[in-house]
Protein backbone atom coordinates (compact mmCIF):
# COMPACT_ATOMS: atom_id res chain seq x y z
CA UNK A 1 0.00 0.00 0.00
CA UNK A 2 1.35 3.39 -0.98
CA UNK A 3 -0.22 5.40 1.81
CA UNK A 4 1.15 4.60 5.21
CA UNK A 5 -0.91 6.18 7.95
CA UNK A 6 -0.53 2.89 9.81
CA UNK A 7 1.81 0.00 9.20
CA UNK A 8 0.16 -2.86 7.25
CA UNK A 9 -0.02 -4.97 10.41
CA UNK A 10 -1.55 -2.15 12.47
CA UNK A 11 -4.02 -1.41 9.66
CA UNK A 12 -5.05 -5.05 9.52
CA UNK A 13 -5.64 -5.09 13.27
CA UNK A 14 -7.48 -1.77 13.10
CA UNK A 15 -9.90 -3.20 10.52
CA UNK A 16 -10.31 -6.38 12.53
CA UNK A 17 -11.08 -4.51 15.73
CA UNK A 18 -13.54 -1.97 14.34
CA UNK A 19 -15.37 -4.77 12.58
CA UNK A 20 -15.09 -7.54 15.13
CA UNK A 21 -15.92 -5.46 18.18
CA UNK A 22 -18.97 -3.89 16.57
CA UNK A 23 -20.16 -7.22 15.14
CA UNK A 24 -19.69 -8.93 18.52
CA UNK A 25 -21.49 -6.21 20.44
CA UNK A 26 -24.24 -6.20 17.83
CA UNK A 27 -24.67 -9.95 18.10
CA UNK A 28 -25.08 -9.83 21.86
CA UNK A 29 -27.22 -6.68 21.85
CA UNK A 30 -29.72 -8.06 19.33
CA UNK A 31 -29.69 -11.50 20.99
CA UNK A 32 -30.48 -9.85 24.30
CA UNK A 33 -33.18 -7.68 22.69
CA UNK A 34 -34.75 -10.74 21.08
CA UNK A 35 -34.81 -12.63 24.37
CA UNK A 36 -36.11 -9.61 26.25
CA UNK A 37 -39.05 -9.15 23.87
CA UNK A 38 -39.81 -12.82 23.21
CA UNK A 39 -43.11 -12.64 25.07
CA UNK A 40 -44.30 -9.50 23.29
CA UNK A 41 -47.48 -9.69 21.26
CA UNK A 42 -46.42 -10.93 17.83
CA UNK A 43 -49.78 -10.06 16.32
CA UNK A 44 -48.52 -6.48 16.46
CA UNK A 45 -46.70 -5.80 13.16
CA UNK A 46 -44.19 -3.50 14.85
CA UNK A 47 -43.20 -6.29 17.25
CA UNK A 48 -42.82 -8.71 14.34
CA UNK A 49 -40.65 -6.20 12.48
CA UNK A 50 -38.48 -5.68 15.53
CA UNK A 51 -38.02 -9.43 15.98
CA UNK A 52 -37.12 -9.80 12.31
CA UNK A 53 -34.66 -6.92 12.66
CA UNK A 54 -33.05 -8.55 15.72
CA UNK A 55 -32.65 -11.85 13.85
CA UNK A 56 -31.01 -10.02 10.94
CA UNK A 57 -28.78 -8.17 13.41
CA UNK A 58 -27.69 -11.48 14.93
CA UNK A 59 -26.93 -12.87 11.47
CA UNK A 60 -24.89 -9.78 10.59
CA UNK A 61 -23.02 -10.09 13.88
CA UNK A 62 -22.13 -13.70 13.14
CA UNK A 63 -21.01 -12.79 9.60
CA UNK A 64 -18.86 -9.95 10.97
CA UNK A 65 -17.14 -12.04 13.61
CA UNK A 66 -16.61 -14.96 11.22
CA UNK A 67 -15.18 -12.59 8.60
CA UNK A 68 -12.73 -11.19 11.15
CA UNK A 69 -11.60 -14.70 12.11
CA UNK A 70 -11.08 -15.51 8.42
CA UNK A 71 -9.16 -12.27 7.94
CA UNK A 72 -6.83 -13.16 10.79
CA UNK A 73 -6.39 -16.68 9.46
CA UNK A 74 -8.04 -18.29 12.49
CA UNK A 75 -10.61 -20.17 10.40
Amino acid at each position, binding site marked *: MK*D*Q*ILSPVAFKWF*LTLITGVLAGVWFFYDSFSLIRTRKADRSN*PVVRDKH*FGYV*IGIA*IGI*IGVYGCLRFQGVV
Partner: protein
Amino acid sequence: MATTATAETNVAETQPAKSARTVSPYNPANAVTASRFLTLPPFVWAVAHGYHQLATLFILICGLLDKLDGLVARIFDCRSPFGELFDAITDGICYGFGLIVVAAYGWAPAIPVAAIIFLGLANSAMRFVYVKRAGKTTNYKSYAMERLVAYTGYLIGFATGGMEVKFFYWAFVPLMLVIVGYDTKRMLIDPIPEAKAS
Protein backbone atom coordinates in the same frame (compact mmCIF):
# COMPACT_ATOMS: atom_id res chain seq x y z
CA MET B 1 -29.44 4.25 -3.68
CA ALA B 2 -32.38 3.19 -1.81
CA THR B 3 -31.05 0.46 0.21
CA THR B 4 -30.29 3.11 2.44
CA ALA B 5 -33.43 4.80 2.34
CA THR B 6 -33.66 2.51 5.22
CA ALA B 7 -32.58 4.49 8.08
CA GLU B 8 -35.79 6.33 7.66
CA THR B 9 -38.09 6.72 10.57
CA ASN B 10 -41.79 6.83 10.46
CA VAL B 11 -42.08 10.22 12.01
CA ALA B 12 -45.80 9.99 12.13
CA GLU B 13 -45.50 6.90 14.29
CA THR B 14 -42.57 7.79 16.46
CA GLN B 15 -43.28 11.43 17.11
CA PRO B 16 -47.01 11.59 17.17
CA ALA B 17 -48.35 15.11 17.22
CA LYS B 18 -45.59 16.16 19.58
CA SER B 19 -45.76 19.75 18.49
CA ALA B 20 -46.66 21.90 15.55
CA ARG B 21 -43.23 23.54 15.65
CA THR B 22 -41.70 24.09 12.24
CA VAL B 23 -38.03 23.21 11.94
CA SER B 24 -36.01 25.02 9.33
CA PRO B 25 -34.20 22.74 6.88
CA TYR B 26 -31.12 24.92 7.48
CA ASN B 27 -30.26 23.48 10.87
CA PRO B 28 -27.07 22.02 12.41
CA ALA B 29 -28.14 18.39 11.98
CA ASN B 30 -28.78 18.80 8.26
CA ALA B 31 -25.49 20.65 7.94
CA VAL B 32 -23.70 17.63 9.40
CA THR B 33 -25.64 15.36 7.06
CA ALA B 34 -24.74 17.52 4.04
CA SER B 35 -21.09 17.59 5.07
CA ARG B 36 -20.92 13.86 4.34
CA PHE B 37 -20.86 14.71 0.63
CA LEU B 38 -17.54 16.46 1.21
CA THR B 39 -15.92 13.09 1.92
CA LEU B 40 -16.77 11.74 -1.53
CA PRO B 41 -14.27 13.67 -3.74
CA PRO B 42 -11.28 12.79 -1.54
CA PHE B 43 -12.57 9.22 -1.35
CA VAL B 44 -12.61 8.94 -5.15
CA TRP B 45 -9.18 10.56 -5.31
CA ALA B 46 -7.78 8.06 -2.81
CA VAL B 47 -9.27 5.07 -4.63
CA ALA B 48 -8.08 6.36 -8.01
CA HIS B 49 -4.53 6.69 -6.67
CA GLY B 50 -4.55 3.33 -4.90
CA TYR B 51 -4.42 4.82 -1.39
CA HIS B 52 -6.22 2.11 0.55
CA GLN B 53 -5.77 3.53 4.02
CA LEU B 54 -6.84 7.04 3.03
CA ALA B 55 -9.90 5.71 1.22
CA THR B 56 -10.80 3.75 4.36
CA LEU B 57 -10.34 6.89 6.44
CA PHE B 58 -12.68 8.97 4.25
CA ILE B 59 -15.43 6.36 4.22
CA LEU B 60 -15.01 6.00 7.99
CA ILE B 61 -15.48 9.76 8.40
CA CYS B 62 -18.59 9.55 6.21
CA GLY B 63 -19.99 6.80 8.43
CA LEU B 64 -19.17 8.64 11.65
CA LEU B 65 -20.89 11.79 10.38
CA ASP B 66 -23.96 9.64 9.75
CA LYS B 67 -24.01 8.74 13.43
CA LEU B 68 -23.23 12.32 14.48
CA ASP B 69 -26.16 13.96 12.68
CA GLY B 70 -28.71 12.11 14.78
CA LEU B 71 -26.91 13.17 17.93
CA VAL B 72 -26.76 16.80 16.78
CA ALA B 73 -30.48 16.70 15.93
CA ARG B 74 -31.25 15.60 19.49
CA ILE B 75 -28.92 18.12 21.10
CA PHE B 76 -30.28 21.07 19.08
CA ASP B 77 -33.82 19.68 19.06
CA CYS B 78 -34.10 20.05 15.29
CA ARG B 79 -35.49 16.68 14.22
CA SER B 80 -37.86 16.92 11.28
CA PRO B 81 -39.40 14.72 8.59
CA PHE B 82 -37.23 16.50 6.04
CA GLY B 83 -34.14 15.74 8.10
CA GLU B 84 -35.04 12.06 8.28
CA LEU B 85 -35.57 11.93 4.54
CA PHE B 86 -32.44 13.93 3.79
CA ASP B 87 -30.44 11.56 5.98
CA ALA B 88 -31.82 8.54 4.14
CA ILE B 89 -31.17 10.07 0.72
CA THR B 90 -27.63 11.00 1.77
CA ASP B 91 -27.05 7.43 2.97
CA GLY B 92 -28.18 6.16 -0.39
CA ILE B 93 -26.07 8.54 -2.44
CA CYS B 94 -22.91 8.20 -0.35
CA TYR B 95 -22.96 4.43 0.08
CA GLY B 96 -24.29 3.74 -3.42
CA PHE B 97 -21.65 5.97 -4.93
CA GLY B 98 -18.96 4.40 -2.75
CA LEU B 99 -19.94 0.91 -3.83
CA ILE B 100 -19.90 1.88 -7.51
CA VAL B 101 -16.45 3.47 -7.13
CA VAL B 102 -14.86 0.46 -5.43
CA ALA B 103 -16.42 -1.88 -7.99
CA ALA B 104 -15.32 0.33 -10.89
CA TYR B 105 -11.72 0.25 -9.69
CA GLY B 106 -11.82 -3.52 -9.19
CA TRP B 107 -11.62 -3.35 -5.40
CA ALA B 108 -14.98 -5.13 -5.01
CA PRO B 109 -16.72 -7.85 -7.04
CA ALA B 110 -19.02 -6.28 -9.62
CA ILE B 111 -21.84 -8.86 -9.52
CA PRO B 112 -22.77 -8.47 -5.84
CA VAL B 113 -22.43 -4.70 -6.14
CA ALA B 114 -24.80 -4.68 -9.13
CA ALA B 115 -27.24 -6.90 -7.20
CA ILE B 116 -27.07 -4.64 -4.14
CA ILE B 117 -27.71 -1.51 -6.18
CA PHE B 118 -30.55 -3.14 -8.10
CA LEU B 119 -32.23 -4.34 -4.89
CA GLY B 120 -31.69 -0.92 -3.33
CA LEU B 121 -33.37 0.83 -6.24
CA ALA B 122 -36.23 -1.68 -6.15
CA ASN B 123 -36.65 -1.02 -2.44
CA SER B 124 -36.78 2.72 -3.13
CA ALA B 125 -39.42 2.28 -5.79
CA MET B 126 -41.55 0.29 -3.36
CA ARG B 127 -41.22 3.02 -0.79
CA PHE B 128 -42.81 5.42 -3.27
CA VAL B 129 -45.64 2.93 -3.79
CA TYR B 130 -46.04 2.73 -0.02
CA VAL B 131 -46.33 6.51 0.21
CA LYS B 132 -48.99 6.42 -2.53
CA ARG B 133 -50.88 3.69 -0.69
CA ALA B 134 -50.71 5.69 2.52
CA GLY B 135 -51.99 8.76 0.70
CA LYS B 136 -49.68 11.04 2.66
CA THR B 137 -46.01 11.70 3.17
CA THR B 138 -44.86 8.96 5.45
CA ASN B 139 -41.62 7.09 5.72
CA TYR B 140 -41.43 3.34 5.99
CA LYS B 141 -39.43 2.06 8.94
CA SER B 142 -37.64 -1.27 8.64
CA TYR B 143 -35.60 -2.44 11.61
CA ALA B 144 -33.87 -5.08 9.50
CA MET B 145 -32.95 -2.66 6.73
CA GLU B 146 -31.52 -0.22 9.26
CA ARG B 147 -29.05 -2.90 10.27
CA LEU B 148 -28.26 -3.69 6.67
CA VAL B 149 -27.47 -0.03 5.98
CA ALA B 150 -24.73 -0.12 8.59
CA TYR B 151 -23.40 -3.27 6.92
CA THR B 152 -23.45 -1.39 3.59
CA GLY B 153 -21.16 1.27 5.01
CA TYR B 154 -18.82 -1.42 6.21
CA LEU B 155 -18.86 -3.09 2.78
CA ILE B 156 -17.07 -0.11 1.29
CA GLY B 157 -14.53 -0.23 4.10
CA PHE B 158 -13.95 -3.95 3.49
CA ALA B 159 -13.18 -3.15 -0.15
CA THR B 160 -10.81 -0.27 0.63
CA GLY B 161 -9.09 -2.28 3.35
CA GLY B 162 -8.92 -5.49 1.32
CA MET B 163 -10.64 -7.35 4.15
CA GLU B 164 -12.27 -10.64 3.10
CA VAL B 165 -13.93 -8.74 0.30
CA LYS B 166 -15.55 -11.62 -1.58
CA PHE B 167 -16.84 -13.23 1.62
CA PHE B 168 -18.47 -10.08 2.98
CA TYR B 169 -19.96 -9.03 -0.37
CA TRP B 170 -21.41 -12.41 -1.22
CA ALA B 171 -22.74 -12.88 2.32
CA PHE B 172 -24.54 -9.55 2.00
CA VAL B 173 -26.60 -10.43 -1.08
CA PRO B 174 -28.81 -13.22 0.37
CA LEU B 175 -29.41 -11.15 3.50
CA MET B 176 -30.54 -8.24 1.37
CA LEU B 177 -32.77 -10.48 -0.75
CA VAL B 178 -34.54 -11.76 2.36
CA ILE B 179 -35.00 -8.27 3.79
CA VAL B 180 -36.20 -6.70 0.55
CA GLY B 181 -38.63 -9.60 0.13
CA TYR B 182 -39.98 -9.14 3.66
CA ASP B 183 -40.23 -5.37 3.31
CA THR B 184 -41.92 -5.70 -0.09
CA LYS B 185 -44.68 -7.76 1.46
CA ARG B 186 -45.11 -5.19 4.20
CA MET B 187 -45.10 -2.22 1.86
CA LEU B 188 -47.26 -3.61 -0.94
CA ILE B 189 -49.58 -6.13 0.71
CA ASP B 190 -49.93 -5.66 4.45
CA PRO B 191 -52.30 -3.02 5.79
CA ILE B 192 -50.70 0.34 6.52
CA PRO B 193 -50.65 1.02 10.27
CA GLU B 194 -52.65 3.96 11.47
CA ALA B 195 -50.66 6.90 12.78
CA LYS B 196 -51.21 7.49 16.46
CA ALA B 197 -53.30 10.53 17.21
CA SER B 198 -51.53 11.49 20.37
